[in-house]
């Protein structure tokens, strides 16, 4: 589906992406990297919006810089905010579909269907400037899917969303992936991407540091120092048991049902949790890594990249 061979992009003297080799087959991918790591540059190269300084990009077997008709098969939801004061969501999405070459009537029907799919039917005739951030985000996704693309590319789709919005977005992305349609989800927050269960592409400083399955990334994480947030029916008992059986560096309680545990041996915690729940009847409602875990992951990967650690699961 997407092939990058030794792709480097320079913005004058600044490196956007650096010597990236990639061969992506149809599927679901999480493009993870800190802010400014080169995710958007990589997306723009894939879409033919930027020309690589070095190397070659192929999209569906062709050079996207030379053949913009390939974009018919792509739905892009950029990270940028767009808002028109006097244009309704329906008018904007219709216009976006018309730019794919559809006539007005067909474009309007597709726009209505996609807005309906994202739960914006009630607001589609309102000016976009009156939309909440979550509604604008949904309108952006509606314009990306309305022409029925083969590959959907979302750049930071969770930005600015409240918990309900994040939940709905995750549900939508899972549904999209379940339909066996291709998806590239770029984000700087690991657990948001984890929820969609994609294969990971980890990028930092313009370099593709690692790629692999969720299991492989978890293996890297498991042996990296990071923090876990655990929501359970009895956090005090659970934390006591973990302290007795694992190397925890610190415990911090959050409210009555959650605590954050910092550890250098996360794999031990993961292995222990099922037996504790069985033996002591503690119900674990949620185990998640905090946002810092991505930084941890990248610092681990950078150390591996520099040869300071074993490669482990990095492919």
């Amino acid at each position, binding site marked *: 589906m997407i092939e990058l061979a030794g792709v480097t992009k320079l913005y004058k003297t600044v490196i956007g992406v650096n010597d990236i080799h990639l061969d992506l087959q149809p599927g679901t991918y999480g493009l993870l990297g800190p802010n400014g790591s080169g995710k958007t540059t990589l997306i723009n190269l894939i879409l033919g919006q*930027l020309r690589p300084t070095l190397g070659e990009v192929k999209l569906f077997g062709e050079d996207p810089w030379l053949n913009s008709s390939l*974009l018919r098969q792509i739905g892009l939801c950029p990270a940028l905010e767009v808002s028109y004061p*006097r*244009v309704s969501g329906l008018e904007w999405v219709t216009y976006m579909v018309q730019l794919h070459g559809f006539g007005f009537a067909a474009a309007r029907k597709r726009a209505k269907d996609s807005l309906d799919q994202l739960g914006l039917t009630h607001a589609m005739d309102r000016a976009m400037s009156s939309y909440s951030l979550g509604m604008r985000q949904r309108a952006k996704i509606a314009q990306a899917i309305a022409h029925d693309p083969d590959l959907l590319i979302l750049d930071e789709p969770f930005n600015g969303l409240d918990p309900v919005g994040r939940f709905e977005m995750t549900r939508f992305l899972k549904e999209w992936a379940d339909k066996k349609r291709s998806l590239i989800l770029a984000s700087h927050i690991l657990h948001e991407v984890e929820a969609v269960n994609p294969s990971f592409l980890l990028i930092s400083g313009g370099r593709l540091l690692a790629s692999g399955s969720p299991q492989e990334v978890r293996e890297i994480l498991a042996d990296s120092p990071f923090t876990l947030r655990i929501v359970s029916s009895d956090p005090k008992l659970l934390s006591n048991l973990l302290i007795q059986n694992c190397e925890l560096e610190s415990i911090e309680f959050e409210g009555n049902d959650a605590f954050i545990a910092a550890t250098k041996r996360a794999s031990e915690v993961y292995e222990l949790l099922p037996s504790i729940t069985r033996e002591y009847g503690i119900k674990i409602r949620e185990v998640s890594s905090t946002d810092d875990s991505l930084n941890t992951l990248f610092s681990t990967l950078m150390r591996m990249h520099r040869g300071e650690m074993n490669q482990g699961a990095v492919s």
Partner: protein
Amino acid sequence: MNYLNPALATCLFELKRSFSFQRMAVTVVLCLFPPTMLLLLILGSKFAENGQIPTEMVDYSTFLSVFLVALVVLLSLLLWATPNVYSELEGKSWSFVASRPGGRISVYLGKFLASVVVSYGIAFIAATACVILQKVLLNILEPMKIWLSMNLVFFLASLIYSALFSTIGTIFIKRAMLVGAAFLIGFDVILGLMPNAIINKLTVRFHLQEIGVGTMGWFFPTDIGPESEYRQIFGEAWPTWVHVLVVLGATVALMAFGIYVIVKREYVTADET
């Protein structure tokens, strides 16, 4: 690839977006400026001459009408055509439109069409009002011929200057309006007035002026100079259709060059880098 439907969609979308109080106010001011100025000048001359409109005013009125309408049309084109790429980058909508097949070309053509529609619309209203004033207050001869000629000239002016400014907008993104205005004054006006120079035949103004002279007759006031003097300086007239072809050909060439630039250039918003 079909660019027509997406270009028309862009044109309509742009026109719809422009229905703001601010833009409507600017459009109304541009429409009313030429007839208002013409009216004030006619009434001013009448008061200066003790209630009688001087005969020179009849002589001057068509030239003034053309000059004033040209002024507002060029201003409108600068406002509408030059920010074609910049407004998309500034409004952060470039990524959305450019990620469509042929989106760059469609948006370029659509915005060109929108600027032609608005600018010619302004010219049509302003020229009509000016000719009506000339007929009512000065009882000019052949008002219909003048009106038709002005419409032809300003329609062609809208086409070629829109193409010129749109192309400038794809090259000089942030300072497109400034570059457009500088080109207009520096090349089209100052260099275009150099006598016996080939360069004045390369200006847009020269060809539009010749089309005006060819269709409505010599419309410059006699104290600026008779046509014979003008011909001595700028050379013999070519047939009008040659000038029309030059203008249309230049429009197509400029648009083609603009399309080449917009397709081959990398445009990235600051947020994306």
